């Protein structure tokens, strides 16, 4: 017992003793990294965290433009073939060299059952070896933006996964521990030193990284602190250096605290409202025998009745970027000239309702998540109040996201009016058109998140064209045309882009990206 105690104390002391010149960076988020397996979940925080350990072929620079990572260059050798030149002399953390075998293996692995990043390589039919450091990717039809789509696909080591029985991604139907969910072996600037799920995850500098480090960190300690107040307290008390998700109510307080700094920037996620235009009769409305949302005047009336400026100022406390489009600036294809909202005009809205045959308004249900987007429920409440001014009585059903998504998503799409947010994972407008705006079609795979069932033949055609158009200018024209049609038909009601808000101590230098990615390789501790 005594010896155990002494050993424990010694261990504790060693853990405390700071190494000479060591720069430890401690940061926290409101959620944990659910897994170390880069294919476990298609969610921003997991991908940005694991992205410090693993690397994709094509990454992104500080402006979110595609940039070389494990591939040094790429080009289209034919409309359906992309050729990637791989970086030479790169080693995984376990010392084994990185080769095209690893790329081929990672391609297989990311498409296996249990992987949640299948969609990232959805257009790729085949990956083939040209030589040790060259691979060709053959796509299913032309894919002009393939390199952009691959930025979240991290390369894993073939030999390491084979050695550790981690060839397959976690299979939720089996009761097994998955090595790759707690261990990691990438090529990135940081190596996983220790992972205690929910407690802390420790990374250390990779001295053998192929790049020239911009950071000066020797160690990174990440902690999950779910409670907002506690997370803020930890920052105030100096227990952490940086907070990845700042509670909106604490932004001002932190801004005015000495030695703390707020980082704010528009995010790529667009928050919008959708209306059921598919059913002949709404599932929860007092209008029977017809669907008011099929009438563009009603959709426009809703749009005009919503005072997005007030939502931005009052609900979001200024931390939002008003938008007229379904994609954010920074997303490829965003057209600034279209990003003018129709002005707030409740009188015109009221008139439109009268014209459409609803002089006394009507009643409709609305679905809203309570824990998915920043202030989601409060936004919905504001919308309810605004619509009541034009005589529309909205019955709000706000629920936790697990229930909310189960209700509104396909195949049921059981909603008449809802709030949703979307970040194009490819940073390209096509992704939003394909998932949110194109007609729902199981065979084409389009419109899976087109919950309201908006449908326009020309938009569908444009979406197909955009997917394969290799001429950037023509492609932009097509995107703009589709966006314009959708905007004028009020297919959805875009509200705003959320703001990415981070907070850090003032001795920390970091780079904030609009995709809410937080690469540790840009962090410096002064």
């Amino acid at each position, binding site marked *: 017992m005594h010896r155990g105690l002494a050993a*424990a104390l010694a261990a504790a002391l060693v853990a405390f003793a700071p190494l000479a010149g060591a720069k430890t960076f401690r940061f926290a988020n409101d959620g944990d990294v659910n897994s170390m397996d880069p294919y*476990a979940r298609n969610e921003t925080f997991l991908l940005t965290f694991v992205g410090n350990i693993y690397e994709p072929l094509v990454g992104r620079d500080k402006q979110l433009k595609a940039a070389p990572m494990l591939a040094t260059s790429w080009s289209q050798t034919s409309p359906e073939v992309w050729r990637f030149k791989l970086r030479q002399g790169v080693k995984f953390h376990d010392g084994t060299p990185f080769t095209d075998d690893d790329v081929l293996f990672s391609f297989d692995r990311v498409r296996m059952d249990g992987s949640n990043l299948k*969609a990232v390589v959805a257009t790729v039919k085949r990956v083939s070896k040209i030589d040790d450091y060259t691979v060709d990717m053959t796509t299913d039809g032309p894919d002009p933006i393939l390199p952009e789509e691959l930025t979240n696909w991290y390369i894993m080591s073939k030999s390491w996964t084979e050695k550790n029985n981690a060839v397959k991604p976690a299979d*939720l139907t089996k009761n097994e521990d998955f090595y790759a969910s707690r261990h990691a072996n990438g090529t990135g600037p940081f190596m996983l030193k220790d992972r205690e799920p929910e407690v802390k995850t420790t990374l250390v500098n990779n001295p053998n990284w192929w790049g020239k480090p911009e950071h000066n960190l020797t160690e990174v300690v990440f902690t999950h602190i779910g409670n907002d*107040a506690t997370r803020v307290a930890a920052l105030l008390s100096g227990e952490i250096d940086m907070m990845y998700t700042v509670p909106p109510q604490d932004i001002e307080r932190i801004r005015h605290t000495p030695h703390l700094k707020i980082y704010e920037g528009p995010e790529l996620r667009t928050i919008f409202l959708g209306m059921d235009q598919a059913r002949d009769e709404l599932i929860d409305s007092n209008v029977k025998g017809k669907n008011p949302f099929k009438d563009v005047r009603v959709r426009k009336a809703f749009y005009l009745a919503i005072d997005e400026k007030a939502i931005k100022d009052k609900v979001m406390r200024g931390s939002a970027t008003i938008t007229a489009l379904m994609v954010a600036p920074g997303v490829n294809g965003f057209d600034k000239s279209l990003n003018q909202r129709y002005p707030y005009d409740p009188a015109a809205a009221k008139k439109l309702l009268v014209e459409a045959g609803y002089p006394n308004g009507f009643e409709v249900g609305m679905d809203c998540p309570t824990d998915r987007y920043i202030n989601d429920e409060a936004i919905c409440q504001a919308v309810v109040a605004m619509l009541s001014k034009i005589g529309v009585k909205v019955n709000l059903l706000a629920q936790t996201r*697990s229930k909310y998504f189960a209700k509104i998503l396909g195949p049921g799409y059981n909603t008449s009016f809802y709030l949703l947010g979307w970040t194009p994972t490819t940073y390209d407008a096509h992704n939003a058109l394909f998932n949110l705006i194109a007609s729902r079609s199981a065979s084409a795979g389009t419109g899976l998140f087109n919950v309201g069932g908006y449908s326009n033949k020309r938009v569908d055609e444009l979406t197909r064209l955009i997917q394969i158009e290799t001429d950037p200018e023509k492609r932009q024209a097509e995107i703009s045309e589709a966006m314009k049609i959708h905007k004028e038909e009020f297919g959805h009601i875009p509200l705003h882009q959320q703001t990415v808000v981070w907070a850090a101590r003032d001795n920390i230098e970091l780079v904030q990206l609009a995709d809410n990615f937080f690469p540790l390789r840009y962090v410096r501790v002064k």
Partner: protein
Amino acid sequence: MIAFIIRRLCQSVAVMLSVAFIAFALFTYVGDPINNIVGQDTGLREREQLRHQLGLDDPFILQFARFVGHAAEGDFGLSYQYARPVSELIAERLPATLELSLVAAVLALAIGLPVGIYTGLHRYSWLSQLMLTASLVGISLPTFLTCILLILVFAVILGWLPSFGRGSTVALGWWTTGFLTIDGLKALILPAITLGLFQMTLIIRLVRAEMLEVLRTDYIKFARARGLPNRLIHFGHALKNTLVPVITITGLQLGSIIAFAVVTETVFQWPGMGLLIIQAISFADIPVMSAYLVLVAFFFVVINLIVDLLYYAVDPRLRIDRAAASGHGI
């Protein structure tokens, strides 16, 4: 005695089965885990396929039967959220919650009992009034608020104690303990106080009320009439009789300490089962939720068993069936 324990443990299986059954009946309402598991770009067909693989499209009776079948083999499945075996997750979290609950319970008892006795014996003293008023504050302050206040004072303003986490721990086999390191002990203080505060207040009030009750009884009056000294009356006769109900309530409270730990653990980011279940609920992580509920049911059964055994030790009237053999009165 042994037979009694075995009988009770058998009953516990029935209790856990019912809890699991009710849990599964309710899971239909917590939402759909599929959207949480897959990425937003995952197609409808794949979503349905995963739903089918996980058996989420089966009627709940079938899901329940499958759960029981696997659980009987010690297999609680894989967490949807962490893709790790639930049994492993729980084994990892259990020490944190049990250590915290234990310290909180000991704290609650160590302060609650003496204060309860004191205020019971000295009803009219100003110190009693002060302690009772303070305990009223303790009982009416929401746990969440207590947590935040303590963090603000001791972590942010004074900087003495950590605001979150468990500090460093030492592994003793699969058990991780925070008792053996200084920062582990420091990290325990605030969560244990918040968690124990409510129970402490409850124990104070319970012991006081019980003490007052017992002091009014005839046998205490008679003990006084026999000329026994106060010490003997208060700490022998009265206290022992006070303990009988206090044991029950405290036992049940220990169970609810584990349940209350959810709030404390969430606020202090204490890596225990409370934190696990909160996340599991928001993720609709059915395997974790079901295992947690069954485990908590098991705790309650075990605590009840211990309470009954303590009863048995304290109150001779319950030993009647054994004693009956040796004669019963005139």
